[in-house]
């Protein structure tokens, strides 16, 4: 029956009563009553239809007594009714004697009485047909017995809980659970058949209140089912409960079919479940990641989850640029070859299809939708009148805005999940209780984990004892300073190298790339990739000088690699800025040349008047500017390509080849290769994550000038997902130091945010401060790129809108608004601080309260034990009529206890923490006592 699940709530309501000694019985009675309420309802209704309501109450007591006296088949049930009766009597006596009942208690009791009545009337209904005659006969006798039995049963019920309690002291919930289980089982057998046929007939005669009640009941059951999966019960029990409530549900549904209420909910729930299933089926690479998770623990898997997350973001970025910029231009813009910016110039035409040129994104690739320069500045294109320049600008801004939003939202969610994790007061307990990673399914990883746990224990103990002795502090200090100096030298050297190489490449570019070989053309990217590959190794070597704790060392290492990447990237950007300046100077020259050329053209070919048709020159022959935007885009694309290539090649050589060599040369080598020097490589989570983050930074930086970058990145991520999954599974060994993933999650996110910020800075700078090229790109002919907004406002929106906008954007309004924002931030921060403080105080309060409760509980338990003792003494003196019912009880419950292995439910017996579900009810009990 569903209600017995609600035992907690039932007992909570019971907690309002004063009868501590009757606690367990009452709980059971109530839950039992609750269960039977369902069954009773139909019977009751039937009776009400027959107009027996008034008589029922009068004869109710009689009938129960009859039931009691019937030498019955159902021992237990009779037993319980007896107890109930006794309970009632006791209450009455108390009311007379003590006169201290509260209103609350009374209402409670009334509720209970109603329940009891229902139970009894049900039984009466069941047995009415058979027993009419018997009842009449025994009526008189029962009336006589009534007074005595009330008393005896009272003692009876004083004894019962005592016995039960003894058992429950040991395994408090086990017995009650198994009992209720068996009860629910037996009832689920008997209940349904009797009611099925009645259900339909009753439909018409329902009063509104009853419908209301039904609705409530159904709601309750739904809630129960929804929460059932969160209960630590064995499946059998859950199934029984579910099924029994299903049967009931069927009838309820029949009853309230006029509502179409529940069935809809059920459908909705089913739909939700299916949708949930569908959603999990849609998550890509789930199985791959799970496999890795089980082999390498959660930290390696966290990299792949991060990769997948990145893939999702790039998918959206790609969708934006592809759908709103590239496709419209390709479909609706002027076709290739119509205007100069969309045509390969004459001097490049011969080599434009060469693979080497295409690989460098020159030739035809350069004059395509992939790059900024291809786009036309026409305001509206195609029959849709698509505002392409505006769309281009907004997509550029939108990608950055979306990335900010996503990263910050993820960070906030992570912070929420870790909420309270800053509390370091449980250092040892966490190490013990939560350090095992249950996902580990590989014996080797497990061994590593054992070792790392042991070290962490030992470290923690050592730290706790604070008996750490620094042997030569001066030497360590010196070594650390030296190490940092070396690292700084490395960083500066790598920065200079990149700067030098970029300048050299500009010289090459000015002289014409055709005269140089492959190396000269790809020098910059190759140098950057090589630096990114070897410097971290160098740092690793240097960091051994420092003799830091491994965790600290890892942080230093990450910081240094971060600085290296960042330095390289910014050197690259600065060099690029120089290049932009050069290109712009070139552009000026071209501009003046252009006017001369045009003049020459007109002078040479059209000497006479202007009536002649304008001469047509093939667009490939028209001189054009260098278009610095396309140059920037090209640089970034090349960088991404070479970066990807180096990653894959290091993967193949460093991991795969090494693994193959170690594996097959091991048999004919003089030392053990597998455990000796080369060994297999570990999967470097932090390095890979950093690589991914910087890659993303470059995408953000370059995406404005090369709309194809997100697409390229998507491809790269897709390939590396498969490649790295394969490489990890086939040629890496689990890490020696197994880190937990969750702790570093937000660390990576924070790095991503920093990179995002740093990479948007240069992009925004170029957009805002450098005028666009005069003859290429969607913003050609404008002084600044963002003028496109102004233009749209003027020509596409009504005049008042432009006015409002200009008012809104004047500094008099913007500055106060900024001020307001700052104030809001300040306010929110200070309130959050206050909340934190209040939180801490509450925590302290709860702790002290908990201690007090503990003391009270102990006192209450002592008192209760004394009372029980007394009650038993009085109970033993009483009549033997209650003796045999008493005797029947122990074997029943003892068989129930054996059906389940003793579950440890210690929390019901001893101290509680505040906020725990079981807590308030128990406390209220003891406090009232």
């Amino acid at each position, binding site marked *: 029956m569903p209600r017995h699940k609600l035992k907690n709530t039932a007992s909570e309501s019971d907690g309002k009563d004063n009868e501590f000694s009757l606690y367990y019985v009452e709980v059971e009675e109530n839950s039992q009553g609750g269960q039977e309420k369902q069954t009773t309802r139909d019977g009751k209704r039937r009776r009400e239809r027959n107009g027996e309501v008034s008589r029922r109450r009068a004869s109710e007591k009689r009938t129960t007594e009859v039931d009691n006296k019937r030498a019955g088949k159902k021992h237990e049930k009779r037993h319980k009714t007896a107890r109930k009766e006794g309970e009632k009597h006791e209450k009455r006596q108390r009311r007379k004697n003590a006169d201290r009942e509260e209103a609350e208690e009374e209402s409670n009791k009334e509720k209970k009485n109603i329940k009891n009545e229902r139970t009894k009337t049900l039984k009466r209904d069941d047995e009415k047909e058979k027993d009419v005659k018997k009842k009449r006969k025994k009526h008189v006798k029962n009336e006589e017995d009534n007074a005595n039995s009330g008393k005896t049963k009272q003692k009876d019920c004083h004894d019962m809980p005592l016995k039960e309690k003894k058992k429950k002291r040991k*395994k408090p919930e086990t017995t009650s659970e198994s009992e209720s289980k068996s009860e629910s089982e037996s009832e689920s057998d008997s209940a349904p058949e009797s009611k099925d046929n009645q259900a339909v007939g009753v439909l018409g005669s329902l009063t509104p209140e009853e419908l209301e009640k039904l609705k409530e009941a159904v709601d309750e059951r739904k809630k129960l089912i929804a929460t*059932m*999966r*969160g209960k*630590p019960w*064995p*499946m*059998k029990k859950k*199934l029984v409960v*579910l099924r029994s409530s299903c049967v009931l549900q069927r009838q309820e549904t029949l009853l309230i079919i006029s509502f179409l209420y529940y069935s809809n909910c059920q459908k909705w729930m089913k739909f939700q*479940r299916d949708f949930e*299933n569908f959603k*999990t089926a849609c998550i890509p690479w789930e199985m791959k990641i*799970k496999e890795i998770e*089980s082999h390498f623990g*959660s930290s390696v898997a966290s990299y792949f989850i991060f990769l997948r997350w990145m893939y999702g973001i790039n998918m959206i970025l790609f969708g934006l640029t592809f759908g709103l910029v590239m496709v419209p231009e390709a479909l609706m813009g002027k076709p290739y070859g119509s205007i100069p910016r969309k045509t390969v110039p004459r001097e490049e035409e011969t080599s434009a299809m060469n693979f080497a040129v295409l690989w460098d994104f020159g030739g035809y690739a350069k004059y395509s939708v992939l790059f900024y320069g291809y786009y036309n500045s026409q305001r509206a294109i195609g029959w849709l009148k698509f505002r392409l320049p505006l769309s281009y600008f907004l997509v550029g801004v939108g990608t950055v805005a979306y990335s900010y939003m996503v990263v910050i939202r993820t960070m906030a969610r992570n912070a929420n999940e870790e909420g309270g*994790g800053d*509390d370091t007061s*449980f250092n*040892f*307990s*966490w190490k*013990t*209780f*939560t*350090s*095992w990673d*249950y*996902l*580990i*399914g*590989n*014996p080797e*990883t*497990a061994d590593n984990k*054992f*070792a790392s746990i*042991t070290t962490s*224990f*030992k470290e*923690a*103990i050592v730290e*706790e*004892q604070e008996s750490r002795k620094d042997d030569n502090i001066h030497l360590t200090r010196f070594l650390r300073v030296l190490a940092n100096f070396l690292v700084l030298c490395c960083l500066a050297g790598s920065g200079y190298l990149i700067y030098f190489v970029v300048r050299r490449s500009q010289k090459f570019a000015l002289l014409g790339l055709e005269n140089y070989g492959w190396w000269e053309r790809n020098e910059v990217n190759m140098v950057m990739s090589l630096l990114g590959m070897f410097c971290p190794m160098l740092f690793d070597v240097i960091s051994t000088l420092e003799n830091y704790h491994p965790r600290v060392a890892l942080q230093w290492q990450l910081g240094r690699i971060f600085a290296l990447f960042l330095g390289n990237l910014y050197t690259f950007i600065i060099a690029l800025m120089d290049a932009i300046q050069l290109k712009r100077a070139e552009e000026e020259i071209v501009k003046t040349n252009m006017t001369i050329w045009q003049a020459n053209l007109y002078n040479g070919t059209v000497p006479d008047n202007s009536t002649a048709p304008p001469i047509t020159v093939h667009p490939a022959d028209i001189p054009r500017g260098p278009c610095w935007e396309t140059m920037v885009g090209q640089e970034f694309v090349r960088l991404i390509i070479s970066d990807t290539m180096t990653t894959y090649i290091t993967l193949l050589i460093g991991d795969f080849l090494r693994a193959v060599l170690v594996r097959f040369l091991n048999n004919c080598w003089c030392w053990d290769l597998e455990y000796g020097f080369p060994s297999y490589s570990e999967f470097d989570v932090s390095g890979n994550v950093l690589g991914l983050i910087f890659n993303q930074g470059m995408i953000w930086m370059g995406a404005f000038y090369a709309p194809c970058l997100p697409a390229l990145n998507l491809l790269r991520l897709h390939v590396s997902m498969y490649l790295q999954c394969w490489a990890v599974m086939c040629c890496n060994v689990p890490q020696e130091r197994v880190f937990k993933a*969750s702790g570093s999650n937000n660390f990576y996110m924070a790095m991503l945010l920093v990179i995002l910020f740093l990479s948007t800075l240069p992009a925004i700078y170029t957009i805002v401060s450098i005028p666009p090229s005069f003859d290429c790109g969607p913003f050609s002919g404008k002084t600044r790129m963002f003028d496109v907004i102004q233009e749209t406002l003027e020509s596409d929106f009504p005049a008042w809108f432009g006015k409002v906008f200009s008012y809104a954007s004047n500094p008099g309004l913007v500055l106060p608004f900024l001020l307001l924002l700052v104030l809001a931030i300040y306010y929110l921060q200070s309130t959050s601080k206050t909340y934190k403080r209040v939180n801490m105080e509450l925590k302290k309060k709860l*702790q002290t309260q908990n*201690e007090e409760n503990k003391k009270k509980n102990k006192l209450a338990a002592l008192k209760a034990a004394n009372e029980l003792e007394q009650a038993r003494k009085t109970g033993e003196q009483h009549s033997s009529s209650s003796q045999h019912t008493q005797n029947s009880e122990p074997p029943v419950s003892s068989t129930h206890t*054996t*059906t*389940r*292995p003793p*579950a*440890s*439910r*210690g*929390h019901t017996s001893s*101290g*509680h*923490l505040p906020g725990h579900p*079981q807590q308030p009810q128990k406390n209220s009990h003891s406090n009232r006592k």
Partner: protein
Amino acid sequence: MGGTSSKLPKDLLSEYQELTFLTKQEILMAHKIFSELQDRENGPYSSRVSMEKIHTLPELKSNPFRKRICHVFSTSDMKDGSLSFEDFLDLLSAFSDSATLEIKSHYAFRIFDFDDDGTLDARDLEKLVNSLTGETDDTRLTGEEMRQLISNILEESDIDKDGTVNLSEFQHVISRSPDFVSSFKIVL
């Protein structure tokens, strides 16, 4: 109940979905794996799979708590740690991604409670630490270290100072931990 047939009936499947944190695919997967284990079972065909067979699963093979896990989830009368299919689903549900912190911590407590007495006392903690540090001697903690460690643990988490950690204290400690939910997972 289930598990004996090679294919799960539809209504049972939906009931299982209702009662566990598992999705349909996961239940079917679990059923497949369980049937395979059953087939490998020597001797008379039964609806339960013995603990040894369960431990051959790669997910449990190297887990130091595998015996405890089986004992906690087993509903067998013989207390041999054998699992029926429903016990198996219970296990997977408690260890699944979407299970709540409360249920996870409840089962974790029972897993760590080696003597099944409802509290974690010093002996339980010692066994727990020994399971965590592995079987070999070089990783094992010395007696002094162990004593220190256990007294530290009790100092931190034994709020009512009765010398043992009970369930609510345990849950209190666990609920603050950032890693517990992410690491208390088993996926097939």
